[in-house]
């Protein structure tokens, strides 16, 4: 008979020898840096072009996002339909995304189709026409979409909490108003496109089961472009956090849940506390076994889920608690969040919980390194945050070495109720 009460022996994940697969680096003829990871069993590949073309660089709201969106909506040779049809015919996905510092174009495809696909990506970077009629359709449809989103408490809460943390004039704090679409002119986009895409600063991240001539293919398509010639402008945006700390907003008088956000400013990844606080954050609300989840979902049933996390921003960050809770228990939920902060400030985390969280985090990193797309995505994050391989190994050592006393000290330093913004949107 087996003893089912007894847990099988485990190898402690903290003892795993975690290795981050190094990238291969080379430069195209025009100096564009390329980072590649060659791995995986499926014949698929991802090519991501990262431009310094986020909303950090725009003079007018949503110019960066709109330019990024319209990149694939027409060139002098192909209209939007023909471009989409070309990529879709080869079963490829061409996505674009706009963030704060950067904006991307990413291609996911079967490796064998790259020679047909890369030249059309080139066309988008040199010859996009950003057509007026496409812009008109985009404005109309985005306005409608915004109107639907504004009905959702969580959408409204995410906008407002960022505004409190950074100020509406900061790229991390601003959001879109209907009037921004009306104010948008095609000329704004053309200018932005030329400066930040055609003649912009670009980095390439490539991963998957790579064809042996990948360097030649990339160089042929992108090596002759007028990229990385000029320096990107140095633009400073001042963080202007709100003075008032607590907010209640009624978005829907009949709403049955409150969207709760509790957040404080936090430094970026270069701060010595950043990785250590990641451990504290996991204990607090960073995973399913966290204190917030155990107490507020698993003990009290106030919510379907509650999480805390550090925002992934380059310049400066914020520590955020986020949940949707029953309207009648929203206040009680907020009180419990502060109670959990207080406990972490007062009491030492016991050995068992420290051990569990450390193992969980190590296992989670190990799982995260599974597959070429995941590995390149970690590298991309490091490169864009000006971090090196050292950061990875230091983080692992931090997770292994951190003590309950350090955790308590960090809680006392950062989990200070008065320093948090608090918002409920019903």
């Amino acid at each position, binding site marked *: 008979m087996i003893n089912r009460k007894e847990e099988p022996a485990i190898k402690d*994940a903290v003892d795993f020898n975690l290795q981050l697969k190094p990238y291969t680096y080379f430069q195209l003829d025009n100096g564009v840096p390329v980072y590649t990871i060659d791995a995986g069993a*499926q014949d698929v590949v991802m090519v991501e072009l990262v431009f310094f073309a986020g909303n950090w660089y725009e003079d007018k709201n949503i110019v960066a996002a709109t330019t990024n969106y319209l990149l694939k909506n027409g060139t002098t040779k192909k209209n939007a339909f023909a471009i989409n049809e070309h990529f879709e015919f080869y079963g490829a996905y061409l996505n674009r995304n706009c963030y704060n510092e950067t904006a991307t174009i990413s291609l996911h*495809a079967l490796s064998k189709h790259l020679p047909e696909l890369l030249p059309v990506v080139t066309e988008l970077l040199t010859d996009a026409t950003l057509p007026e009629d496409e812009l008109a359709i985009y404005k109309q449809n985005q306005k409608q979409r915004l109107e639907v989103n504004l009905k959702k408490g969580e959408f409204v809460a995410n906008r407002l909490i960022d505004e409190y943390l950074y100020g509406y004039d900061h790229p991390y704090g601003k959001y879109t108003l209907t009037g921004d679409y009306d104010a948008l002119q095609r000329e704004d986009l053309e200018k932005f496109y030329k400066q930040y895409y055609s003649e912009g600063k670009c980095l390439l991240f490539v991963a998957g089961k790579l064809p042996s001539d990948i360097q030649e293919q990339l160089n042929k398509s992108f090596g002759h472009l007028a990229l990385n010639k000029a320096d990107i402008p140095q633009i400073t945006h001042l963080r202007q956090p709100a003075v008032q700390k607590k907010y209640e907003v009624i978005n829907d008088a009949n709403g049955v849940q409150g969207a709760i956000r509790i957040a404080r400013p936090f430094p970026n990844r270069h701060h010595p506390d950043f990785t250590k606080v990641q451990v504290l954050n996991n204990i607090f609300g960073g995973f399913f076994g966290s204190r917030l989840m155990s107490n507020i979902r698993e*003990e009290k049933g106030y919510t379907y889920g509650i999480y805390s996390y550090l925002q992934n921003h380059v310049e400066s960050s914020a520590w955020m608690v986020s949940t949707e809770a*029953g309207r009648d228990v929203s206040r009680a939920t907020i009180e419990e969040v502060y109670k959990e902060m207080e406990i972490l400030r007062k009491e030492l985390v016991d050995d068992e919980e420290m051990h569990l969280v450390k193992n969980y985090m190590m296992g989670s990193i190990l799982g995260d390194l599974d597959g070429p797309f995941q590995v390149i995505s970690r590298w991309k994050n490091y490169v864009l945050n000006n971090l090196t391989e050292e950061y990875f190994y230091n983080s692992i050592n931090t997770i292994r070495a951190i003590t309950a006393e350090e955790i308590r000290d960090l809680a006392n330093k950062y989990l200070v109720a008065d320093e948090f913004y608090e918002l409920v949107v019903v």
Partner: protein
Amino acid sequence: MIHYNRFVLDNGLRVLVHEDTSTPMAVVNIMYDVGSRDENPDKTGFAHLFEHLMFGGSINIPDYDEPLQRAGGENNAYTTNDLTNYYCQLPAENIETAFWLESDRMLSLAFSKKSLDVQRKVVCEEFKEHYINKPYGDVWHKMRELAYTVHPYRWMTIGKDLSHIENAQLNDVKEFFFKHYRPINAILVVAGNVKTEEIKRLANKWFGDIPMGEKYVRHLTDEPVQHQARVLDTEADVPLNAFYKTWHMESRLEKGYYVADLITEILGGGGSSRLYQALVKEQKLFSNIDCYHFGSVDKGLITIEGKLVKGVSMDKAEQAVNEVIEKMQADSVSETELQKVKNKTESIIAFEDMTIMSRANSLAFYELLGDPDLMNKELEKYQQITAGDILSYSKSTLDAANSSTLHYYSKN
């Protein structure tokens, strides 16, 4: 090509092993052959609520999550109309922890009153978050009731009504467990850096002595063929009018399923699809429009849904959708368009198969359908479809008499 080994324990538990030494991780996936289609119409949402209770402690282990996290693992689960699936991923060296945890909760739950009380509330909050406190959140409650008259696909996995969840009793939980959560109704798939011989040993050690249980045989009434178009008008506090239309399609293993899948790609799969090009870009009647289906095991629904541009009448929008459909029924698709959707399907399959988690999940699903080898034959089935198949299927299936339409009006 996905390789696997398959064996069956004496108690009927089917075990599949997919070895992949390129990863340090392992996935343990258990699929139970029970979904919301197996619920009593007066106790809907139960299969999903039950999924929550599977994390509330088993007979010998008070907490499922903690030991798994301690072993460096993560887990989750989901319930559909057809099945319930539990999966965890952990460092392969610690795989026995997953066997210990999963086998104990298959042996018996703790049936804790407290867990039921709390998870009832959690699921009610989930219901509110996704279906009440969200514009258009009730669409599929209405649409399923319109499109299905007898088949249990007429309610959603979350349940028909909050009260069904609130009224769930501990006795219901016990009965459900011993009826459905037995080895004979389950499939175990292990994928990753493992060896089949070792998995055989662990499977026998941990699952071998669990009583087989009774094979659950479903006796669902087929949804009768629909002979008349159904229409429902509804109104809510939403900013935009929306249009939804469905047609009954073939079940998962019939040829028609694959034809329907390609048709949804032709109509609504991306920037060069017919509905998007005609109705969003050229005629500017919709601000977004999609066409999809649910991949259901029994006969599912081909669906078109879109939000109307303000000022466009519902009649005009519907007429324009009908024209796109009529064209599908009148003219053959070109070889290029057919090749496009086949290429896309090839690509979807390749990307899906990238992670061991997804491979494990697919193997379990195809075993549930009756043959794991189907996983390796999917692409071939799509390749065989001709333009003639698409045309005749469009004529027979995208027929008005087989359709249900929901006009969702904005109150404002």
